[in-house]
């Protein structure tokens, strides 16, 4: 054994030993019993073995981990490259536009379904439905005024519309709606029965505002048949002074035109 070790030592100092042979030497000198004449070789092998057991302290590892960690986090939190950002922006734009288009389309379709072909027919039906006598309680005054005003935009009116307007003029509970109907009828004065209806209405109306408007309308179309109801107004004590003056004026104008 000792002789083997001596041979190995010789090889060792020549730099010819293998790692395995060097391990044998290290083990040998780690033992308690080393022959006296070989002891002087022990020191360096002892150093090699204990030097190999050296490791950095535990705190070193945690310090190192702290140093390595932060630079890693920053880039990962970022939201992709510029390309990804631009793509995301474009995607948002596209979603917005298609959403808008779809909404628009749906609205158009809805309108088409709701409205029949021609605009006139639309308004005819709309006006009729709003002004229908049975619905007075359901519709508001402003809605009825709007319907009345729409009537003058119609290119052609039929008897249904003029009758509705006359009815509104005579029976609507709201003064303003009646006034609007009166003004609307002025536009359709050439339609049959309209001037007649206005003359008859003069006897029914009690509101001075409407009475005055009616008088003005009748005078402007020079309706001779209105002279009789004008004179009735003049005789009526309950009618306001202004209205009576207006009626008097109307009578004289109509009769003078006659001459």
């Amino acid at each position: 054994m000792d002789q083997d070790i001596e041979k190995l030592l010789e090889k060792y100092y020549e730099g010819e030993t293998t790692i395995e042979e060097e391990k044998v030497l290290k083990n040998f000198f780690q033992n308690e019993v080393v022959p006296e004449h070989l002891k002087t070789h022990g020191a360096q092998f002892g150093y090699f073995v204990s030097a190999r057991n050296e490791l950095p302290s535990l705190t070193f590892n945690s310090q190192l981990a702290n140093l390595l960690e932060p630079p890693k986090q920053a880039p990962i939190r970022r939201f992709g490259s510029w390309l990804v950002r631009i793509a995301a922006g474009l995607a948002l734009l596209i979603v917005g536009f298609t959403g808008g288009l779809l909404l628009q389309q749906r609205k158009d379709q809805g309108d088409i379904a709701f409205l029949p072909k021609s605009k006139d027919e639309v308004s005819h039906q709309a006006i009729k439905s709003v002004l229908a006598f049975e619905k007075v309680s359901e519709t508001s005054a402003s809605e009825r005024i709007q319907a009345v005003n729409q009537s003058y935009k119609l290119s052609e009116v039929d008897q249904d519309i003029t009758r509705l307007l006359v009815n509104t003029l005579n029976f609507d509970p709201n003064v303003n709606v009646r006034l609007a109907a009166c003004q609307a009828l002025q536009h359709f004065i050439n339609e049959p029965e309209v001037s007649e209806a206005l003359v008859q209405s003069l006897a029914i109306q009690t509101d001075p505002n409407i009475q005055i408007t009616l008088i003005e309308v009748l005078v402007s179309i020079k309706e001779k048949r209105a002279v009789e109801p004008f004179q009735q107004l003049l005789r009526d004590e309950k009618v306001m002074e202004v209205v009576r003056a207006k009626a008097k004026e109307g009578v004289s104008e109509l009769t003078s035109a006659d001459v």
Partner: protein
Amino acid sequence: MDLQAFTQRILPVQGRLFRLAQMFLGNREEAEDAIQDVLMRLWTNRQQLETYQSIDALAVQMTKNLCLDRLKSHHKQKVQYNVDMTEVQAAEMTPHRQLENADSEALIYKLISELPEQHKLVLHLRDVEEYSFEEIEQVTGLTNANIRTILSRARQKLRESYLKANDYGSGY
């Protein structure tokens, strides 16, 4: 290379780097500081690491160069061998033997640090780290024959100076 891959490949090497740095610099704090520097440099250049054949060899080279630079720039005298190194001694040794060993190991360290840099490095890699000759070639760039010569000279020189220091005279 992400942090996990880096840790898996580099950290097992760090003990080796630490021992090398400690051998050159002579104390624990400076050695830790040096290898921390080396590991940080490796980490910041991690993109290029893949192109190297052996990251181990690269890391060892970097550590060696860094330690030599530090020694030069500090104009350091040879540092006394750190006695805490002997704390890891095997427990079965008697206190007397331990003390004796600590003394002789400290002496060996001192003698090693008196060797030329190249000899120091080769001796350390072979006898402490148990590197194969191929691995030493990778780190030092020397030829196999050169390494054997250097190793042989370093071992003999160490032996001689140890005997001289202990007044044993020459011979085995």
